[in-house]
Each structure stands twice: as C-alpha cells, then as structure tokens.
C-alpha cells in the first residue's frame, strides 16, 4: 500500500450541473466515485491521508469541458477496460469519462508540461460579425493588455493578458450568438482566461458560455524535478 503500482490518466468531460464544481468539489466527487467503483486508490501517507490524484489544470467554475485530465495512482494493477466500465457506471450527471490510459509511474505530473488550452466561447451580443472581427483585430494588435484579477485574500493584482493569448478567431454566428475559438497559454507559468479576453475586446455581450476543447502539452518544457 505504501507504493503505488500503477498510474492511470483519465480524460473526462464536465457539463450541466458539474460546470459549477470547484476543483475541491471535483476532488471529493472523484474520490467517492472511485470508492463506489471499488478502484484500489492509493492514498498519501501522513496525518490526514488523501487519495493520490492530480488534475492537469483546474477548470474555472462556470466553464464546461470535454478534455479534463486527471492522473490517479493505484495500489493494485487493474484491467483498464474494466476500470473504464466501472467509472462510467458510477459517474453522476454532467461527468463523461472519455478515455482511460496507463501512464508510466515516473512520468511528469500532467500539470507540469501543460502549455496551452483551446476554448470555444459562445457570447450573446447585438454586435455584427464585422464588429466582432474588428474587436479581435484591435485586441491582437495591442502589445500589452493590462488586466486585474482578484488574488487570494481579495487583493487585486494586475497582469499583462496579451502574451497569454495565442490566437482568437470568430468561428460563426447563429442569430445574435457568436462563436469564438480561443487559444491561450495554460500551465504552470500562467493561464489566460477566455472571459478576460471577451471583456478586453470591449464588445457588448450579455451571456457568455465557455467550453474547453483541448489541452496542449509541450515537448520542450522543463522536466519534473
């Protein structure tokens, strides 16, 4: 029990009620799900043991996703197909298990080499396609975009959003619902948030729905210590 013997990478989607789950809520949810499924979870040692899993990148509350990644460490080897079947059987509404794969035990943590994330942003706006395109062009033409975000303890901290934006595209429109595709930096050196981009574009948007499509890992990133 002291040394996990297998590590499994789970890719899953979050939608419906679970878009409001914080990373803490999801940790509890997964622990309970895996216990119900009878998965031999490895626990950390020490005063208050907790199950060993790592999320690649906590999804901001309110976002949906089809590409969340979590590694779990197990005390016993399991059949992956059986594991996936059990997970699906114990998944609450809003959780979709998409892929289960073995990862070598010494591989870096999933968050360590994460580089970028792609999002689909749906916004309701009276603006025309041309106006949105122009807003994107203006946004990308800037060399720095100062934004403030609330850090822990409620203080505001300013940061430059521009270097976090890789690319923004207008994908299509249906009535007043515009679809944008956004590619931002995501990982240990900072993450760009799509709703900040929408705000920085300065378009009049009433309802914004953000969906994470893809996480991108980089080969050249620093190795885990």
């Amino acid at each position, binding site marked *: *029990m002291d040394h996990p013997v297998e590590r499994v990478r789970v890719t899953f989607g979050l939608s*419906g*009620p*679970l*878009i*409001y*789950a914080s990373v*803490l*809520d999801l940790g*509890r*949810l997964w*622990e*309970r*799900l*895996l*216990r*119900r499924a009878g998965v031999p979870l490895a*626990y950390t040692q020490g*005063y*208050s*043991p907790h199950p060993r899993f790592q999320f690649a990148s906590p999804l901001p*509350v*309110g976002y949906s996703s089809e590409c969340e990644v979590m590694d779990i460490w197990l005390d016993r080897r399991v059949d992956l197909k059986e594991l996936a079947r059990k997970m699906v059987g*114990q998944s*609450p*509404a*809003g959780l979709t298990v998409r892929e289960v794969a073995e990862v070598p035990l010494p591989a870096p943590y999933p968050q360590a080499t994460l580089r970028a994330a792609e999002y689909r942003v749906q916004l309701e706006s009276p603006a025309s396609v041309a106006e949105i395109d122009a807003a994107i062009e203006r946004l990308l033409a800037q060399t720095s975009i100062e934004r403030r975000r609330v850090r822990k303890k409620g203080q505001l901290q300013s940061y430059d959003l521009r270097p976090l934006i890789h690319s923004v595209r207008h994908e299509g429109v249906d009535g007043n619902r515009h679809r944008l595709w956004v590619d931002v930096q995501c990982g240990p050196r900072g993450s760009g948030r799509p709703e900040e981009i929408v705000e920085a574009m300065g378009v009049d948007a009433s*309802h914004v*729905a953000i969906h994470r499509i893809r996480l991108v890992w980089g080969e050249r990133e620093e190795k885990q210590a």
Partner: protein
Amino acid sequence: MQLSEERLHELLANVQKPLRYVGQEWNSITKEWADASVRLVLAYPDLYEIGMSNLGLAILYDLVNRHDDWLVERAYAPWTDMEAAMRAAGVPLFALESRRAVADFDVVGFSLQYELNYTNVPNMLDLAGLAPLAADRPAALPVVIGGGSGTYNPEPLADLFDAMVIGEGEEVLPELLAAVEAFKAEEGAGGSKDALLRRLAAIEGVYVPSHYAPREDGSVTPLGEDAPASVRRRIARRLGPVPTRPIVPTMQVVHDRAVVEIQRGCSRGCRFCQAGMIYRPVRERPVTEVLDAVDEVLANTGHTEVGLLSLSSSDHSGIAEIVQGVLARHEGRRVAVSLPSLRIDSFSVQLAEMIQSTRKTGFTFAPEAGSQRLRDVINKGVTEDDLLRTAEAAFSAGWNRIKVYFMIGLPTETDDDVLEMARLIRTLQALGRKVRGRTVDIGVSVSTFVPKPHTPFQWAPLAERNTIERRQALLREHARGRGIHLSWSDWDNTWLEALLSRGDRRLGRVLLRAWQLGARFDAWSEHFRPDLWRQALEEEGIDARAYTARERCIDEPLPWDVIDMGVRRAYLLREWQRAACGEVTGDCRDECRGCGIMAAYVSAGDGADASWRCP
C-alpha cells in the same frame, strides 16, 4: 412551469455557490412528471447545505420514492443573492429534480426543525407564488403541510399551514399522500379545499389548524366534529429501513458523511431536553441491521465517514459490537466512524479510542450545569467525579483537546452555580496539564437555556437578559486561563427562539409582519434583525414578555396542549416538582417512570416492541 437549463445557467451567472441550485447529484431521483399520481416537494427552510444534512428528509425522500406512482423532489431556501436574481427574472421557487415550480406540486411539505428558520417559510411560499397564509389559498392543491419537531407547538405557524404532521413522518406521510391521491382521483382538479382537509383530518397524527379556533388564553378549541380534542403524535413501532442510497451532494454540506440511525429516543430523562421527551420510546436498531446498512450506504455513496446517529450513542445495548463490527468490516478502507452524543463515562472514552486513532477532533461531553445541585435539578445524572474521571481517561488516552457543553439560565440557577461552573472548567484545565504535561485546549460552549414545550421545564420562564449577561461576564472573569476558549449564544437569538417556541397563534401575525419587514434567515448573523421583530411585536400590540419572561401556572392552558405527545402531563408535572426539590429520577430502562408512553402506544395484553428499551 419548468425552468430550462439555459435559464438556470443565466440565473446562476452571478450567484454564490451555484451548486446549491442545480440538483442532479448522485443518487437523486428524477421521476417522470406525467406518470406520477401524487407529487410531493420536500421543502427545507434553510440553505441547501443545511437541509441536505437532515436525516429526516433523507428518510422521507427514500420512503416516498419507493412508491412507483409517487414522485418526490426537493426545494431549499435560496440565499439572498439567488432570491434577488429569481425575483428580478420572475422565476418562481423551483424543485431541484425537475426544475418545476413548487406551486405545480400537489403537496408542499416543509420540514420545521428550528424556530430561527421560520421566516423562511412565508418567504419560500411567496417566492413560489403561493400566499403565505393558508386562508388566502383557496385552491385545494397544492396543499401546504409542515412536519418535524417544530410542529409540537404548531400554533405560531398555524396560520401558514393547511395541515401539520404530528409525529414520525414515516408513519403519517404515506397515509397523507394516499389520501391526496384518492382525493385527486375521486374529486378531480376542482375538488374543494374543505373536502381535502376533512380527509386529511381523519388521518391519525394530522393537525388541521383551521379546524380549531384560538382562545383568549392562547390555547385552541376544536370547531367541529372533524377536529379531535387533541392530536396524538404518531410513532413508528420499530425503526424503518435505513436510506442506504442517500443523495451524495457535489458541494460540501454541513455533515458530509453517510449516516445510519442506530437508535431513536433517549431514556435518560434530562428535564431540559426536548428531544429526550419527544422522541420516546427508545427504539434500538439491531446490530446486524446497523452493520449491513453501514456496508450498503458506504458502497452506494463512496463516503469516507459514517455517522452512527442517536441521542445517546453509548446507550445502545450493542454499541461496542457495532463499532468493532464496522471497523472490522472496513479495515484498510480508510473509513472513519463518528459517534455523536457520548455519555460522560469511561466506557465512552473506550468507544472514542476505538474510532479515533488519530485524536484529530476534540473529545466532547456535556455536563450542562456547573454545580452538583443544578445537575440534580436538571436530572443530568452525572457527578463531578464522573466528569473528572472521564476527562482524565480522555487525556490519558492522548486527547489534548476537549469540548464541554454547558447551559446558563436554568431554573433555580444562581450566580454561585455559575461560579462553580468556572471552577469546574479550571479544574479540567489543571487536570489536562497534569496528565498531558502541557497546556490542553478546553473549548467551552455556553448556551442559554430555552424552556421548551412538552418538557418538565415547559412552565419555566426564560431568564432575564441582564441575568444572562451578568453570568456570561462572570464566566469571562472566572473561567479564564491558558487554553480555555469560551463561546456563548447571543441573547437576541435565544430570545427569538424562546418567543417562537413558546408562542400561541397570535404570534403568527408577528411572524408574518416580521417577514414583511424583511426578516429572513434569522439563524444567520449576517441577516438577523431583532429590531424588525421588535417592530413587528409593537405593531401587532403583543408583549413578548408574556411569552418569554413569565413562569406559567401549572393549571394554565398551554398553546401546545392540543398536541398529545404520548407523554403524560402528570409525568412532566411530577418531574417539574421533583426538579424544584433537586430530586433525581433514574434512567427509565432500569425501571418504568410512568411517562405514559406504554399506556399511549401499547394496547392491553400486548407488550412493547422487542426493539423498545422500556422495561
């Protein structure tokens, strides 16, 4: 009316803790609306995270869902940010499962557990688009009912409810739903409310407030043949099945664990304790049933902690077997066991040692009063010697932290009793330092006694504010030292709890007025506005002191006399008189003390159920 998922997401965009409002948790059940013959919404007048920790609602949710034709959903009080968003968008209170409007259900059933939640009842009805007063709701359906310990003095809420369930819901609710089902089938949508209420009044354990008129003295009188002189509390002869597929909340709730009720009722007879009187008789769940239920509930929820619930855990005759059994069956699976309400004895320390290998939480016990004289008055049945030996055993077993519960404002209490309490606290601190060789942490929680209906102290007054504040100051002065942490209840909270728990039907107008003035979530300090209550009392011309500060005469009619708890008034009175003389009454498992339960619930020639602990 059904709220779309998209509109819900819009509402939640700027609301704290949106998981309170989205439902679809693991083990929640959404039945087909059109297929149900009766539709019940269980409403809890507090936040989701409080209501989801209530075992009674989990039992009823499970029970009603077992009937294929019946549908049950949940609704909680939205926090003020969500309420504002809903009112601004014109969205009525909805049930979590189907997101249908609460007003679309046949039965709206409120769980009434705590007086400081009461203003959330009219607020939730209003949010649902229903008139808060029963008399202003002419249609038969939805019928608004209340249940839970709050109904044991139904009068302050009587004007809001069409009917109230008196006693254990497992017994009454299925009969009530069957009656509503029959009413719908036989009378159709146009059936009259009078006809429905007559059907409900015919069920044993249902109180229909409109069938009674208040008297000048605060009691009520039956208005016609449909109204029995009193309504007797219903009880389950034996504990029903454990809900082993309870809903697993996604957000953190107050009691985030699996729960198995191992025993209902308590045989100790503490004179201040309402639970000890109103949940009689003591009914034990057999050991094997408990162990199997624990296995199932852990397997079905994935919880890492199971609470073995009762009013006095160490009193279950098989408690050691239960604790050892749970630990043995789940060894190596990291399951924590919690046992609330341990007695003050060394056996309890042994039990606590078994379940807590890490000593993470403090060891808790409740001497309630500081002096032996006062502990005898309240019939606590614990000596200072018991207390010190138990504390010493806990310190020796490795606890550095203990938590002690006391009350002030008890009948006959003097400042000397409070000084004794301070001395006892300092003795505990010194004992801890001696045993542990370091400063120990002594958490002392001092609440203010509220005389509750259906207890031997129901005739007692609430202590005066200046008395309470002086005694709190005495404790601050005399019970201090390294490691001692005192906490106490706020006077205004205590006052309002006393007012509402001891009130009569006139207080319904005050409640409604306070709500109209803006009172809600009174249990939450950020929202509690005692000034609104004082204003409401003044506007309605009601003197609160007549309810709180006055000792009631023993021959005076009481507002809650219409409710027959199965415990005799003569027994309560005898205990009240014994209290005055400081005479202790022993545990009723040793010898029957004649409280009346056997006479009320056991017919001649028939014994008590084997699960009862009545001798």
